[in-house]
């Protein structure tokens, strides 16, 4: 087939359909992913007993800010990495900065606690075994949907794009998970929340490496 004939067919097709740009795709993924996580939290885990009170205190919101900023970092990275000439730098920097801040706050809280026992207690909280796996499970619907929608885009670094999609998903669903989780120390959040988000990012990277080629 002559290239000119191909171009004719492409020009004809351009009159018909037009795909949404990455920001719109990602907004839809976030909305559906958050909704899926919310339904799971409400039907499976339930909200924390003291939710009404917690909403008045600072720690509920600090946690939400941490996870939401992680999600925003993932968004910034994946929005760029879904384009062939894009770099995730701004997203990585934001993610690293907020993570460092949370780790520093967690380390500080552990250091000023009365003794090692108290510090360990903060680190374990009430739910250290279930926290990361639950965030991982809550995030799978959004990650799956996100990777699927990325297949319509043009990432030239598929592994990194998948990692960023995982970070985005993890940040969004960990924020929703805050409605259930009663933990209230940075020490706990910095380790177990981050680990759950990181697990999603790792899965995103692994799957993305082969699923996002085009």
């Amino acid at each position, binding site marked *: 087939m*002559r290239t000119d004939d191909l171009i004719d067919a492409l020009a004809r097709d351009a009159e018909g359909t037009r795909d949404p740009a990455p920001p719109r795709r990602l907004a839809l993924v976030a909305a559906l992913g958050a909704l899926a996580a919310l339904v799971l939290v409400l039907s499976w885990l339930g909200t924390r007993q003291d939710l009404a009170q917690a909403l008045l205190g600072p720690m509920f919101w600090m946690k939400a800010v941490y996870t939401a900023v992680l999600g925003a970092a993932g968004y910034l990275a994946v929005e760029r990495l879904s*384009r062939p000439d894009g770099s995730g730098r701004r997203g990585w920097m934001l993610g690293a900065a907020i993570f460092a801040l949370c780790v520093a706050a967690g380390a500080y809280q552990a250091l000023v606690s009365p003794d090692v026992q108290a510090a360990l207690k903060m680190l374990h909280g009430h739910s250290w075994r279930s926290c990361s796996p639950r965030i991982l499970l809550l995030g799978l619907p959004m990650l799956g949907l996100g990777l699927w929608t990325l297949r319509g885009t043009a990432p030239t670094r598929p592994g990194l794009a998948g990692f960023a999609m995982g970070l985005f998903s993890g940040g969004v669903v960990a924020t929703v998970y805050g409605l259930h989780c009663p933990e209230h120390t940075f020490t706990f959040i910095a380790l177990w929340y981050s680990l759950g988000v990181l697990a999603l990012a790792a899965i995103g990277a692994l799957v993305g490496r082969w699923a996002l080629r085009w």
Partner: protein
Amino acid sequence: MTDTETRLKALMLRGLDGDAAAYRACLALLGVRLRAYFARRMSGAPGDVEDLVQETLLAVHLKRSTWDSAQSFTAWAHAVARYKLIDHWRRRRVRQTLPIEDHIDFLAAEEPDPGVGLELDRALASLPERQRRLVGDVKLTGLSLAEAGARAGMSEGAAKVALHRALKALAERMRRADG
């Protein structure tokens, strides 16, 4: 050089707004650039040049929503071409590196004659008969989608969907052609 960027970008913007003639002109101009770009980097396999030009044009078309119109169109198109060339080498087990900055050079090459792409025909041959006919029939100067659709026994809406599916299938098959 920047002149080419200005022209390509203006044509692409008009094309995205639904101007089919401008879109066609943009792809044709880009095709010339791509041919020169690949020819220069594939002196070992000149027969593959047109295949890559066609595969890249298909990708440019199908992935055009990922171009951010606030950015350079040439840099975006070069990134697509570079990805396709590296992918081609990977499939052929050739180890090469490509500088990421040479999209300036991408604009400034001499123009070899277009060859004939064989892989596209092979991919086309593997499509269902109706889709294949449709792709061949929709010339910008010739049949409209409605007319080509009627010839294949489809409504215009169905022809639209069928053409888009056919192009996506072609892109996928070319990518896997020598995988």
